[in-house]
């Protein structure tokens, strides 16, 4: 509890994930920017990924929006609902 870190992201713990917008950003950063690129028959290009990440980064950098996204994930809602629109207006 005396840790100097405000946020230590333990990916195995979903509760921690939910309390931290950082973890969502870091996840996006890892999943979109990194990893082995195996060109499937459909693959998004590196430049596209940078742009997508920057866009998401700006969008998701407030705790509130990160939680919105996570809530939707938890509830397994289909994108295209009002929540999606709410996010889009922020762009």
């Amino acid at each position, binding site marked *: 509890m005396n*840790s*100097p*870190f*405000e*946020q*230590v*992201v333990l*990916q*195995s713990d979903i509760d921690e994930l939910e309390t931290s917008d*950082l*973890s*969502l*950003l*870091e*996840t*996006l*950063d*890892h*999943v*979109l*920017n*990194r*990893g*082995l*690129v*195996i*060109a*499937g*028959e*459909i*693959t*998004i290009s590196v430049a*596209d*990924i*940078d742009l*997508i*990440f*920057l*866009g*998401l*980064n*700006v*969008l*998701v*950098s407030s705790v509130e929006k990160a939680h*919105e*996204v*996570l809530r*939707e*994930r938890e509830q*397994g809602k*289909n*994108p295209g609902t009002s*929540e*999606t629109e709410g*996010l*889009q207006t922020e*762009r």
Partner: protein
Amino acid sequence: MTGNGEKAEVKDAFYVYGICEATAAAVIAAEGLPGAIEEDAGVELITVDGLSAVVSRVPLASYAELSLAENLTDATWTAVRAMRHQQVVEHFARRTSVVPLRFGAIYLEFEGVERMLTDRKLELKEIIERLRGREEWGINLYADRETLAGVIDSLSPRLRDLHEQAATASPGQSYLLRKKIETLRADESRSELQRISSEVEDTFRSLADETRRLRVLRVEATEHGELTAKFAFLIKRASFEEFRATAERLARKHELSGVRLELTGPWPAYNFAGD
């Protein structure tokens, strides 16, 4: 329904999360698998000659080139898929050595995945060996420029001198001296930040099997200051505790200078899987 892809009304594609050894994959699959990238899909294995690709069938309607590009501009759609991708990769990474792919490797046919496993077999096996027993930790460095400048002011003999001169100088001279102080302070802050960053990198490098300095794509300053450097380290599981303890020590050491360390992990070894 879609077991026989070619015959089905709605065409599915194959989304690949990562690749691991077939024996381990079978054991993990038998114990139960996490949710797939799409709600109504399952996580499946496609196995060729000792290697398994972890895949899901996804509707081409959402994942074909044009619709994918459009979906990706929807932040919620993308964020949710990225989280699910991560959860699947992580599920395997916690249990075996996995080659984590990044989001968006999609094959139109089952056979396309099989071909990929065959064609890249040696490369994939080499990566699996290199990553075995290891995961990735991230260190982000944030700098609070004001705090750092304050520390520099009190520590730098040259700056202390200039401050003393400015205090007793005429208004005109004092103006010029303050300009000089600002420039010098910015220079010294920058080199101090570089020094700390190198120290941090070198210290963790000695505990890591591999090190990457990552591009800083994050644009905005946060409440923790400005993101100034980002590193990834490939660490043996046996060294996790030491790594964490070292991070805590370095964080304490530098926090008074306005430099914050942020530790994230463990991650599947996204940064060490290739390229």
